[in-house]
């Protein structure tokens, strides 16, 4: 098999019983006795998982009570599904889910498309030093937090910002990138793409190294132009990776970028720019509505779980690449 991938090469989809080691058939006690030292070493990790991953689920029970932070969950009144009903009766909830999905989808696809295009451009560059420099510059913003990039964006996209001044020079009336609710989602998507495309190109550059240079040379000799080489050699190689990356991104469909939105949004663009995470933050930490925040968080977790499972399945179907 030539599954040259860092991901698990799941090709058979079935387990052959003859493959099973003997100890899987034997009673569990015997294996514990034999591998007791390994099990001992497993204990700390198990405890960490219990305390850091399973115990916090207790907090999810806030969703079913009328929460009093001083009395704790145990001391609060049990209200059943009332909080869930409340959440679905909130007028903003439809907007929230729509905004989250629109912003997230825009980011996932554009990030990957720009990343792929950039990787191909870089791949075509033959001058090594230039290649390195340009790639570093493009990857650089990825390593800054949104607090920094956001402040930069606020001044770049402001009324007197560089972008609007450039627009005015061209005779276009200035736009309120962060204040107009119809433009705001696009501002979010494009600032995010600007920050991340260099980073997503890294994966594609790795995938492009799989191409045998002789193949390209041979095609060139046979008269294939740049477009033909792109279309018949390069794209087929990176396409599975592209699909995989997009589906992987779909797993995080409801993560539309909390820190970015929090830094850039304002009440005038809530209707198109508010996402589930910022809403949870506002409800829980600003407005003191712990129950609402928990319910929305839970909904997000459940949908996110389904999204990851199905993304993995879709990716496995289309490209044979799976995460687990």
């Amino acid at each position, binding site marked *: *098999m030539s599954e040259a991938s860092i991901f*698990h090469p*799941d*090709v*058979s*989809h079935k*387990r052959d019983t003859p*493959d099973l*080691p003997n*100890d*899987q058939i034997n009673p569990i006690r015997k*294996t514990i006795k034999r*591998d007791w*030292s*390994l*099990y001992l*070493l*497993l*204990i*700390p*990790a*198990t405890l*960490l998982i219990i305390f850091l991953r399973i115990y916090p689920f207790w907090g999810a029970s806030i969703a079913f009570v009328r929460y*009093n*932070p*001083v*009395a704790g969950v145990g001391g609060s009144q049990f209200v059943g599904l009332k909080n869930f009903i409340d959440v679905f009766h909130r*007028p903003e909830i439809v907007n929230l889910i729509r905004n989250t999905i629109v912003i997230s989808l825009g980011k996932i696809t554009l990030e990957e498309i720009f990343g792929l295009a950039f990787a191909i451009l870089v791949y075509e560059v033959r001058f090594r030093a230039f290649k390195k420099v340009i790639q570093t510059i493009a990857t650089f913003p990825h390593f800054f937090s949104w607090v920094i990039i956001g402040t930069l964006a*606020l001044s770049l996209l*402001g*009324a*007197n910002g560089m972008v609007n001044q450039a627009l005015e020079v061209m005779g276009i009336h*200035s736009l*309120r990138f*962060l*204040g*107009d*609710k*119809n433009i705001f989602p696009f501002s979010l998507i494009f600032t995010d793409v600007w920050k991340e495309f260099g980073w997503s190109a890294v994966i594609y550059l790795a995938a492009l190294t799989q191409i045998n240079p002789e193949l390209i040379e041979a095609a060139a000799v046979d008269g294939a132009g740049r477009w033909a080489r792109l279309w018949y050699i390069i794209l087929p190689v990176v396409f599975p990776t592209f699909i995989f990356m997009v589906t992987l991104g779909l797993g995080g469909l409801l993560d539309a970028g909390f820190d970015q939105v929090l830094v850039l949004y*304002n*009440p*005038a663009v*809530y*209707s198109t720019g508010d996402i589930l995470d910022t809403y949870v933050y*506002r409800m*829980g*930490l*600003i*407005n*003191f*509505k*712990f129950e609402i925040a928990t319910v929305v968080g839970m909904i997000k977790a459940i949908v996110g779980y389904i999204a990851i499972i199905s993304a993995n399945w879709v990716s496995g179907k289309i490209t044979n690449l799976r995460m687990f």
Partner: protein
Amino acid sequence: MNQKLNKPYLSRRDFLRFASLASGALVLASCNVKTETPTEAPTNPPPPALPTATSKPSDTPVPLKPTATLKPTEIPVPTATTGATPDANGCVTDWLFKYPEFTKYDPPIVVKVPFRTMNFQYEGETFTNNPSHQLLLDKLGIDYQESYEVPGSEYYTRLNNDLAAGTLPDVFRVGNPRLGQYINVGAVEDITDIFEATASDLVKQVKGYPKSSIWNGVRMDGRIYGVAYLEDGFTSDNLAFIRSDWLEQVGMPAPKTVDDVTAVAKAIKEKGLCQFPIAMNQELVTWQCSVDPIIGAFGAMSGMGSGTVWWLKNPDGTLRYGSLDAGVKSALAVLNQWFKDELVDTDFINKDASASGDAVLAGQAGIFYAPWWIGQGLLPDVYAAFPGSKVDVIPSPTGPEGKKGRGGTGLLGNALLFRKGLDPKIIEASIKQLNWHTEMHVNWDQYQAYGEAFQGAFFFRGYEWDLDTQCNMVLGPIPDSEWRYQQDLMWNYRGVCYPDYQVPIFQKMAEWQKADPAKLNSAQKFIIGIKAKQDNMTFFNYAVDTRDEIIPNEFLGSNTEAISNVLSDLQDYERTTFLEIITGSRPLDDFDKFTTEWLDRGGKIYTEEVNKWYSANK
């Protein structure tokens, strides 16, 4: 084909190996993590160095940038207690500090409070190493420690976190309408008995205990759960200000009506004096560059979802929510027009109150609505940045029916709360400290000969004032109102003890000067001579003279649980809707939809609760 390579899953043995490796790594990693934060605050901080003659600030006060720090060698010794000791130049002051009697706590009693990040700090200074802290420790034996440092803008978020996690500081300040959140859930201590036993008669008198409505915010079932602050003295009354030098340049009289304001702003813009002549910010109705006089011009008043609310009286004796008034719609129409004409910053929704103040400072706006104390806060910097500039207070604009009005200063301000389960001794110590401060503020002429001049702060040499080499008093290097330890050392914050403390004292000194200038000591002469103080006095008097304009909030009860349940959502809804109308992403007529939907979204409950209170307390 290699069977092993093709095997899709790990065998259990492999899994265990892998897991044990991972867990081993985790154990190693967790062993290496040591808490970097020291568990104790450093005791005995090194004493600040003596000032040298050359390091003294020069005669003319240079406005410092807010983030300015001085080198450690320049940290002056706090001389609040040593007024008569000659300094390096042999200078002595002709006035002395005196403090009211206090039975000092020995050993000192430790109180943990949140510390809000300050813009100005001497290098090397900390929350526990500064003259204010030292003074309280020396005189009262109260040792304030910071439970954490938090930027002012994140203060309430942090407190909400604390509440959820059960890590509230010992003593903390909370503003209305948030008080109910802490009191209703039982997070704070009932202090009724301690307060009644410990608070001095003077404290009870100036705070109107128990009858004054300021106590409503902290009262539940007849018990009090915190010490109410006095927010009075017109501190939040937004008066109309204008850059008179610009007015002269465009050759127009001061605007009298809202239409005049629009016309003047247009003229200023056309003349190219600035891009956005009217200062406004995302909070709409707030403490600086607020729009409440515009709403008042249409006979209504509204907080526009900013947190402050207005309940107005109906002819039938009930209360109605101010933001639903038709006048608000007219005000929104004006604001929307200003936005369309680019008379206000088209980016205002990304700017808060202090950012819009910065616009005034930078000469990017010239018409704004702000409280009287900008005479000392904003204007000195404007004058310094634009020589020849002049800012004047003008009458609030009138609407088409000749009405005018402003929000005024609500009586329900902040309160100091004490964490549930706090040692009663600490509560007692805090109230004793309040007694001490109040005595010093109210009977100021017996203790502080200089008067309570600077934001209720202590009057420390090297901070608020200094002596030059000729022994003349000069302004210290502190940018005004930046030195804020006293905010978190609780009682010494403005308005806490004694309302109207600043200007009346100043006016009294001015009277003395008229009667017999020779009787004033150098501190009093110095304070009277400060232009910012004189500006403040002018503006303050103007606020007093026009007090009839104030459209008061008639609901002075505390927020019940039912109100707390709906309030934050209603505020969000109101703010979003109004901002969308102003920025034009919603038509003005959506205001009518807002008024009905507001009621459906919980406004009905709110209105019922408020009227229940009102009919019981009329």
